[in-house]
């Protein structure tokens, strides 16, 4: 057993980021999913020895971790952050940094940097300035900088959230290869990624583990895969807009740049006609799918992109809905969740 956490709690002032987490992590790939701000990063930082829990017991290799021996944990567990950050200098300087701290001989450093660059599919890039790297290259160099230390545990915080599908797929391939030789804990909202990579998934909600199990057992994964839209957001006059296909989705979170948003199927209102409403998002399109599950009906509506709305069987019957019928969907800008 690599980690054992019991009653781990973390407060930031009045904010409770984690509440009584009990968890063991063995030789496995563990996925952590959940919305933004539920404590995923905090949990990773505690596992990385970067944050001290407010309460609870953290053990690594059966040794209790206290503020006095967190360096021991940090020598064995390396974290990769959502946005790669680099020290001044070239790729080599950055990858060699951790090895130099460990007083590794320069000849060995050169050899290991070269090897790890091949692992991350970036051979020959050692002397490129980190400022000149593309987004995908940056994340792979950040991965190389951690892998070169050969850590027992690799902790990744949303490693592919800012990447295009091509680069995300390369990162996933590398992680799959690395999962044979080390423990991997990955916080993500890329659910296909977590389904393919993880042996076990935790669903965090408001600082507690709300579901846990193999990816196919965790209901949150199926619930989560509905209505996720990645794209580039613009924030103007207090409203953010994300262009998806040919429709503009409005939401309130003030963010610019590449983001993924999620609309819960139960937050979408279906109507036969255009309705006067305060909801900033209203679109019209035909019903392209109907699926009944546990007494509720999931209606897929193609308004340029497909939305899934959840309604009761009674509403479905009363509205006289059928496949191909044109309907309106509406939802508030504030019900859009930023992932």
């Amino acid at each position, binding site marked *: 057993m690599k980690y054992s956490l019991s009653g781990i709690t973390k407060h930031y002032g009045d904010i409770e980021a984690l509440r009584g987490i009990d968890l063991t992590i063995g030789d496995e790939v563990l996925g952590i999913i959940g919305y933004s701000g539920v404590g995923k990063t905090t949990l990773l930082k505690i596992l990385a020895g*970067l944050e001290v829990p407010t309460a609870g017991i953290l053990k690594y290799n059966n040794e209790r971790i206290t503020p006095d021996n967190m360096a021991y944990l940090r020598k064995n567990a*390396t974290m990769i952050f959502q946005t790669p*950050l680099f020290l001044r200098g070239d790729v080599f300087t950055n990858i060699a940094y*951790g090895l130099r*701290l460990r007083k590794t001989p320069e000849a060995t450093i050169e050899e290991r940097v070269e090897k790890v660059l091949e692992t991350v599919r970036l051979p020959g890039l050692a002397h490129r300035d980190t400022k000149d790297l593309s987004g995908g290259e940056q994340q792979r160099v950040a991965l190389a900088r951690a892998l070169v230390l050969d850590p027992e545990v690799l902790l990744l915080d949303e490693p592919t959230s800012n990447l295009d599908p091509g680069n995300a797929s390369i990162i996933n391939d590398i992680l799959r290869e690395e999962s044979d030789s080390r423990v991997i804990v990955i916080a993500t909202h890329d659910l296909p990624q977590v389904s393919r990579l993880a042996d076990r998934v935790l669903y965090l909600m408001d600082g507690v583990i709300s579901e846990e199990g193999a990816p196919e057992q965790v209901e949150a994964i199926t619930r989560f895969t509905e209505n996720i839209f990645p794209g580039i957001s613009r924030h103007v006059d207090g409203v953010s807009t994300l262009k998806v296909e040919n429709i503009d989705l409005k939401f309130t979170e003030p963010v610019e740049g590449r983001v993924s948003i999620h609309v819960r199927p139960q937050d979408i209102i279906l109507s036969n006609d255009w309705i006067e409403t305060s909801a900033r998002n209203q679109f019209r399109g035909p019903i392209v799918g109907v699926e009944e599950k546990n007494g509720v009906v999931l209606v897929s509506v193609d308004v340029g992109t497909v939305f899934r709305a959840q309604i009761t069987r009674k509403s479905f019957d009363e509205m006289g809905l059928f496949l191909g019928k044109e309907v309106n969907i509406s939802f508030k800008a504030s019900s859009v969740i930023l992932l």
Partner: protein
Amino acid sequence: MGSLSLLYTVRGVAVGQAILILPIMVTFIVSAIESKDQELRDLVRTLGASEYETSIAVVREAYSGVSLAIISSFNRAFAELGIATMLGANISGITRVLTTAIALETSKGELGLSFALSFILLFVVLVLNYFINWLQGGST
């Protein structure tokens, strides 16, 4: 200053200028280091840095802000007149500096010489700024 025998001496002027620029320098350096936020600290710590090594890394990454603080402070002191006059008294050959000389020549009506000295002052400031910028460019 008198009891320390610093009045009307170069050393006295230097002490006065140092007191003047200290707050500017400290404020600039502190804000440069603080701007290197928690993410950088977390990064170097997860790569295995001790607390001491983390501090070194943060200062090194804040280098451009620190050098900006040094240039600004130097420029402030170099172009300063009040302290140079008050503590140095503009004694020819001893405590006369560019700014006090410019003030003296202007008050004498020697505008030509005053302008010439002003251009020398500007030239020195510009060359120094350019040199520091060049150093920064080479190191990043």
